[in-house]
């Protein structure tokens, strides 16, 4: 099994290094094919591992020692248990699809090879993140995916907005990483090790306050990576990257790393209900907050990005109320349908010459039948309609929230489910149906390459059927995660399902009805609520105005006024004082004999007086 583990882990790295060799050469199809093949190999290994661990075994290996100083021993150790195997399956599945898809999508890009190098490097980092058996290894992957995300968001670096967004994402993540690092320090100094198993064993003996600190700081790290409020602004801006990147990194895998962390550290989190409640509340807040912004946005990719944010909120609610396996399950199904949605959006963008404004599209269904079908499947899954994958996982989250007596959370999520259904179908309606507005703007849309559509097929299938594997999943995951028994009656259970389905269907129905009639009136766009939502609650503006700008100004002041005019000037002042005292006393050395004689006389006098007054012999 070790061989499979190392294959799964290192195949993407090999692919990445191979593609990197050609990074500054013109497009070479081999790089795309080689990396995709290696990812397929990685996927096969992951599946083998998944089947192997499904019955409760786990694979644990140690490659070598990494850092050893004082009492701190960090090995490169990897563990594949049920959680890891699930993550590996999700990551390799989506990334294999994305790789194949990208061969078509990046067809005309002159940096084709560089793209694949970074994409595979990302997969490697993500694998390190999920497979590592200690917090430091997790942190390697954590920063590694951050780096790849930076490089891929800024892939078209000649665009100012892209390189800006890349830096924003990296720096935001770094803020959170500091929290995570502090969490790691706390773990080390109090648990004496960074190995998961060693740490989790000791949870019961530790003070509550300490555990609170640890979980809170680790969660700050998770908030950055999973773009939770208030560190969420980078995710929408990250849409500057190529669409396959958005699908892989900013929807299916990297942003779920925060959720993974909470699931992984579940022994810690279940010991501190306060922090868990905070996690759940923040998750619910973000779910609604992001969904509300998605309602009015006009940018194809940003709408999907906000929906990702919103779904991440759902996952945190599940993790926060203790239903870790549900969080993981939703993470998985979400990865499939959200990647599908993004890649479908990529087809649309290609067809529309990278136009993103959904109000310039419409009626594309005729030209892009298959893309329409795929995106509709994904949207239905996202809305959580039976029998698609989204229904099973999302419904479980609502159920878990309700069953653990968090009725407010449940209500928030329930409303959000309606909003989700509405904005998903608003998007579908505006892009694929209705008036063919694109003709006004002179676009000539066309369907994507056939193989790109085929590449999406696995995701579409998974988005449809993944939910039916719920029982197998529970059976597997119960070896490692707690499966709580809900004490709700069958009546409540069915009522909840019906109510949820009703609001989702209602949202869809409302969207279809409204947008088949031409949408909302112009007046709506002038209202305060619309403006507030459209400007993302003015948060990016606030950050820019009250954090970035003052920081820049303060830096300038520190440099020009403090460093040069105070600190350095003091040093120069001391130097010039000494210099000036020399200038003043240089007249002594005038070279005039009579002057010198006078000084000699004075000196003689002083010496004589000294001899008289301080003479040892009187």
């Amino acid at each position: 099994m070790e061989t499979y583990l190392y294959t799964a882990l290192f195949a993407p790295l090999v692919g990445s290094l191979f593609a990197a060799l050609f990074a500054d050469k013109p497009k070479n199809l081999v790089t795309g094919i080689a990396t995709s093949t290696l990812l397929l190999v990685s996927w096969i290994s992951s599946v083998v591992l998944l089947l192997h661990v499904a019955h409760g075994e786990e694979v644990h290996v140690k490659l070598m020692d990494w850092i050893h100083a004082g009492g701190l021993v960090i090995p490169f150790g990897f563990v594949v248990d049920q959680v890891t195997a699930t993550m590996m399956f999700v990551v390799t599945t989506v990334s294999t699809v994305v790789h194949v898809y990208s061969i078509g999508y990046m067809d005309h890009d002159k940096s084709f090879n560089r793209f694949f190098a970074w994409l595979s490097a990302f997969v490697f980092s993500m694998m390190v993140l999920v497979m590592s058996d200690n917090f430091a290894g997790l942190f390697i992957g954590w920063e590694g995916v951050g780096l790849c995300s930076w490089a891929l968001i800024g892939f078209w670096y000649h665009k100012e907005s892209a390189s800006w967004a890349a830096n924003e994402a990296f720096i935001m993540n770094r803020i959170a990483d500091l929290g995570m690092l502090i969490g790691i320090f706390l773990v080390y100094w109090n648990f004496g090790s960074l190995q998961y198993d060693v740490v989790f064993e000791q949870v019961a003996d530790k003070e509550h306050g300490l555990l609170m600190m640890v979980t809170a700081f680790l969660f700050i790290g998770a908030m950055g990576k999973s773009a939770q409020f208030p560190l969420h602004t980078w995710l929408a801006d990250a849409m500057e990257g190529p669409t396959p990147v958005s699908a892989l990194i900013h929807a299916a895998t990297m942003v779920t790393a925060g959720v993974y962390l909470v699931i992984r550290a579940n022994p810690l989190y279940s010991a501190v209900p306060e922090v868990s409640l905070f996690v759940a509340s923040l998750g619910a807040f973000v779910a609604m907050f992001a969904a509300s912004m998605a309602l009015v946005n006009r940018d194809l990719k940003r709408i999907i990005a906000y929906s990702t944010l919103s779904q991440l909120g759902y996952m945190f609610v599940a993790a926060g109320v203790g239903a870790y396996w549900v969080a993981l399950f939703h993470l998985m199904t979400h990865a499939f349908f959200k990647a599908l949605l993004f890649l479908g959006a990529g087809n649309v963008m290609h067809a529309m010459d990278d136009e993103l404004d959904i109000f310039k599209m419409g009626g594309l269904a005729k030209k892009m039948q298959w893309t329409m079908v795929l995106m509709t499947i994904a949207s239905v899954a996202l809305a959580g309609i039976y029998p698609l994958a989204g229904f099973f996982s999302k419904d479980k989250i609502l159920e878990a929230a309700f069953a653990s007596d968090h009725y407010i959370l449940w209500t928030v999520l329930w409303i959000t489910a309606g909003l989700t259904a509405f904005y998903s179908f608003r998007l579908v309606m505006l892009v694929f149906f209705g008036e063919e507005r694109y003709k006004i703007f002179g676009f000539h849309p066309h369907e994507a390459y056939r193989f790109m559509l085929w590449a999406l097929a696995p995701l579409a299938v998974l988005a449809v059927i993944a939910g039916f594997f719920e029982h197998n999943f529970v059976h597997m995951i119960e070896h490692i995660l707690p499966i709580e028994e809900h004490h709700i009656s069958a009546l409540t259970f069915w009522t909840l399902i019906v109510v949820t389905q009703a609001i989702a269907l209602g949202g869809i129905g409302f969207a279809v009805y409204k947008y088949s009639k031409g949408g909302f009136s112009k007046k709506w766009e002038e209202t305060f609520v619309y403006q507030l939502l459209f400007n993302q609650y003015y948060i990016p503006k606030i950050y820019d105005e009250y954090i970035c700008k003052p920081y820049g100004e303060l830096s300038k002041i520190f440099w020009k006024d403090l460093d040069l005019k105070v600190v350095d000037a003091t040093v120069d002042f001391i130097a010039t004082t000494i210099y000036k005292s020399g200038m003043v006393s240089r007249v002594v050395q005038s070279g005039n004999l009579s002057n010198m004689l006078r000084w000699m006389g004075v000196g003689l006098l002083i010496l004589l007086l000294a001899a008289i007054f301080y003479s040892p012999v009187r």
Partner: protein
Amino acid sequence: MITLSHYLILSAILFGIGLVGVYRRKNLLLLLFSTEILLNAVNIGFAAISKFYGDLTGQMFAFFIVAVAASEVAVGLGLMIVWYKRRGTLDIDTMQSMHG
């Protein structure tokens, strides 16, 4: 009776005269003379104290100083003549090549 004090007073007076000369005179030649007076004032002191203690070291030193003074005058006068030939003056305020 002429005692040691008288000699020392004479020495001090001569020294004072020499010192005033060194300070007040602007002519290099006279400066040199004043130096000679200073040296001789010291000589008198040495000789007197030597006699008083009956120790010949002082008189030896006086001779030594006489010799030094003589050579100094020889070298000094030579230099001064060269200087005078070049500059036509021996005023010490004009002898300033450093400008502090």
